[in-house]
């Protein structure tokens, strides 16, 4: 099976080279048969990569410890559930997993569009095959996951050896979320390849208009949605597993995932300017290019050892490949742009400074400033060392000081932007849309201040969250009122109907709602508290309104670990609340590594977060660390809402579906369904 996997990847690489060559030659000669052959080669390479990945999964599940990668990241006692996540737990496997996910995207793009967009698809096929080809070079020749464990025998002939057991999976990765966090994040990273391919194809093919945007809107939303959920799942994993009481540490790997998400968000907003007004064509093309390049840059930063990270793989020469590919992509983008920029001339015309268009410009500015701040902070240690020769650190204090004000301004624009009309917004409209939210949010701020809520940023965040929340709710209420007046449906049905008529617009509002909840959760960090203490059975400690009484410590045997578990009785205001069981696990096959299972009592008000940190090496006393983290649950709840909003915005509009269904019915058949009445009270449709 190891040979099968290697062979499948090699064959896939050959297919990629053929798809590129045949595609270029087909475009130059106009040979349709060759173009079709190139497309089929692209589809074949996807299937081959999938087969290669499946073979590695098979090797994990059959405990084939002749394979270096399997021996390094798995063991016989590793639960079956974790043998799949073991696939992406190391460098070689994660690169193959990247190729696999890109293959999924490429396969569906090539198959779905096989009879569409004849001007664009040959270019798209070449670009996707080139990106695939790069990763296949890594999979086949630089970091192959199918390398065998071997030794040189007495006769000088290499011999394959099979180990009795493997090293096992890193304990930190033996957590259910690790089965879904990396796939989500990678689906985000790889997904941005699709809009990149279409944007570059439109530029290379000198294809005018907004077609590439229409084609890729849903693909971009899918990639963005996966990236968002992936980032939040990663944050939740860090919160629940690493046991330091937080969820975001501004580590370079975390920053690497955040940067393309930010530029992708900017693109999703500014693309509406191009669709509605034919504006910012150059800007949008470059936003997509930059988003894709940031995906590659992040991988380069964390795999090259240029910046040190808790999560990074060991420093290796693979970073040079990524830097080379990055330079190649940048060169292609610059050349393509300068050769064909005449085709990107926009109708840049604003009717008023106070309009949706100008809010989008500021939105893009703030998002890019946030992205730059993150990139700058991540790279600054390297820059400083290069210029001064001294090593310095750039950690959470820097990122928080720089990004919190930027983030709050962005939150403000989240409330303002959607309520401004395209082209021009009148003073009366501003007063009508913003009057009540502004007054109520200021009152909320004053009440919070009066109640002792004195942290400046947290107070500003609260005011802005109330403001944005009210503007969003106001939009839904206004639209639902119109439908209710015409149809007499109940409020819930009206809101559902409203959302389904313009899924993109109202899906966007739901995403904004999710972001508001996330900001509420982030603001809670200003009031975190913690206490750490040695605790024997019978001891107690108090944090906030909670009293933690230690009942006992026990050891128990897990499938591949031994755990020491504390039993903590939690009372609140002298009333029994619940039992918490934080534990520390000791893994026998992983170089005696340990992992912690945090016990969390989570409510929308606060999280009681309890870590059994281990035993004091001097006294042998068990040490428990308790945190009281307010509002954290709102972050995960906001992520859920954000995911729902993303799905909603991808769905087709109900009205369009009815019209299409009506059009598809033969003449003289049953009465066609009546299209729902249009809602016309609010500004231009998104």
């Amino acid at each position, binding site marked *: 099976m190891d040979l099968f996997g290697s062979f499948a990847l090699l064959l896939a690489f050959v297919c990629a080279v053929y798809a590129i060559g045949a595609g270029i030659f087909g475009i130059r000669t106009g040979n349709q048969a060759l173009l079709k052959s190139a497309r089929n080669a692209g589809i074949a390479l996807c299937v081959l990569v999938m087969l290669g990945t499946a073979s590695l999964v098979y090797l994990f599940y059959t405990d084939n410890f002749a394979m270096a990668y399997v021996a390094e990241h798995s063991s016989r006692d590793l639960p079956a559930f974790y043998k799949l996540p073991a696939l992406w737990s190391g460098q070689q496997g994660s690169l193959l997993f990247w190729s696999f996910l890109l293959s999924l995207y490429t396969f569906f793009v090539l198959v779905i569009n096989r009879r569409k*967009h004849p001007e664009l698809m040959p270019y798209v096929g070449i670009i996707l095959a080139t990106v695939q080809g790069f990763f296949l070079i890594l999979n086949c020749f630089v970091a192959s996951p199918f390398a065998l464990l071997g030794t040189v025998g007495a006769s000088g002939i290499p011999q394959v050896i099979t180990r009795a057991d493997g090293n096992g999976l890193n304990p930190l990765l033996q957590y259910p979320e690790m089965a879904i966090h990396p796939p989500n994040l990678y689906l985000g990273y790889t997904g941005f390849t699709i809009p990149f391919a279409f944007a570059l194809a439109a530029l290379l093919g000198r294809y*005018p*208009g907004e077609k590439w945007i*229409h084609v890729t809107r849903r693909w971009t939303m899918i990639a963005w949605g996966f990236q968002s959920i992936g980032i939040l799942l990663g944050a939740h994993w860090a919160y629940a597993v690493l*046991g*330091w*009481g937080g969820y975001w*540490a501004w580590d370079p790997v975390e920053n690497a995932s955040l940067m393309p998400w930010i530029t992708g968000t900017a693109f999703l907003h500014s693309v509406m300017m191009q669709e509605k007004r034919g504006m910012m064509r150059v800007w949008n093309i470059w936003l997509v290019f930059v988003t894709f390049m940031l995906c590659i840059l992040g991988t380069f930063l964390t795999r090259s050892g240029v910046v*040190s*990270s*808790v999560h990074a793989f060991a420093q290796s020469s693979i970073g040079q490949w990524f830097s080379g590919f990055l330079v190649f992509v940048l060169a292609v983008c610059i050349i393509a742009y300068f050769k064909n920029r*005449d*085709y*990107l*001339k*926009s*109708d*840049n*015309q*604003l009717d008023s*400074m106070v309009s949706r268009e100008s809010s989008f*410009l500021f939105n893009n*500015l*703030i998002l*890019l*400033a946030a992205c*730059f701040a993150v990139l*700058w*902070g991540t790279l*600054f240690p390297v*820059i*400083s060392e290069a210029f001064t020769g*001294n*090593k*310095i*650190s*750039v*950690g*959470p*204090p*820097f990122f928080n000081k*720089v990004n919190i004000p930027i983030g709050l301004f962005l939150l403000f624009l989240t409330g303002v932007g959607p309520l401004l009309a395209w082209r021009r917004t009148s003073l009366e409209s501003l007063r009508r849309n913003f009057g009540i939210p502004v007054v109520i949010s200021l009152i909320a701020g004053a009440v919070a201040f009066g109640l*002792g809520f*004195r942290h400046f940023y947290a107070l500003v965040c609260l005011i802005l969250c109330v403001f944005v929340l009210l503007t969003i709710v106001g939009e839904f209420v206004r639209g639902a009122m119109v439908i209710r007046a015409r149809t007499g449906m109940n409020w819930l049905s009206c809101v559902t109907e409203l959302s389904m008529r313009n899924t993109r617009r109202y899906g966007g509002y739901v995403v904004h709602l999710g972001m508001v909840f996330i900001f509420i959760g982030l603001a809670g960090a200003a009031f975190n508290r*913690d*206490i*750490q*203490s040695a605790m*024997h059975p*019978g001891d*107690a*400690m*108090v944090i*906030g309104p909670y009293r933690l009484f230690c009942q006992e410590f026990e050891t128990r045997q897990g499938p591949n670990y031994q755990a020491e578990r504390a039993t903590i009785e939690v009372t609140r205001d*002298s009333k029994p609340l619940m039992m918490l069981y934080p534990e520390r696990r000791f893994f026998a096959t992983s170089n005696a590594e340990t992992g912690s299972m945090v016990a969390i009592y989570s409510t929308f008000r606060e999280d009681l977060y309890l870590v059994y*940190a*281990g035993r*004091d*090496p001097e006294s042998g006393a068990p040490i428990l*660390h308790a945190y009281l983290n307010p509002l954290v649950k709102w972050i995960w709840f906001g992520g859920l809402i954000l995911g729902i909003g993303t799905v909603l915005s991808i769905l087709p509009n109900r009205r369009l579906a009815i019209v299409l269904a009506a059009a598809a019915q033969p003449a003289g058949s049953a009465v066609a369904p009546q299209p729902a009445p249009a809602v016309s009270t609010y500004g231009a449709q998104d």
Partner: protein
Amino acid sequence: MAPRISPRSGVAQPPEASGLAARMQEGAALSHGLRIPRAFSKDPRAFTRAFLFFSLVLLLLLPATAQQSDRAKTVGHRMFCMCGCKQILVECNHVGCTMSTSMLKKLDAEVASGKSDDLILQSFVQQFGAEVVAEPPAKGFNWLAWIMPFAALGAGFLLVRTVLTRWTPQSGTTPAMPSGPGVAPDVLARIRQESEEDE
């Protein structure tokens, strides 16, 4: 604001009985264990004055105690643990991490000695190097770290303002038309139709 507890100096309460029995013991101590001094029983106002005095002393002392704990935590959040874990000093959760334990002891001592935050950081830099500080020092070349994000934002604002001014037509001017290469009307019509189908 409720007083915060230093992460490593939190002291466990002594072993005690759990639940109702413990609370009953506390109640008994309150009702029978306290004796009112004779001076207070003679002059009730003396009790009020003494109460107010001790309240005032407590009010003066409590913030000072809380501030010290807060300071240790605040300064500790500005430093990394130097064991290589890349965690903020007061967030390092490695039990037995000799580095964070000794660093926190040093931090507590420095805070107790009444040094300013900058002096405390300076003493850590002398011992562990500049990498111990979790944010770039705002001096020399490292000023750039702080200036650049906001300079970029400011430049961006100017750029957006310029762009908006240029794109907003002045009164009496006619809107500019896109000046890209000419595209045949039938091609444009087909593209529009295809785009609508895609949407």
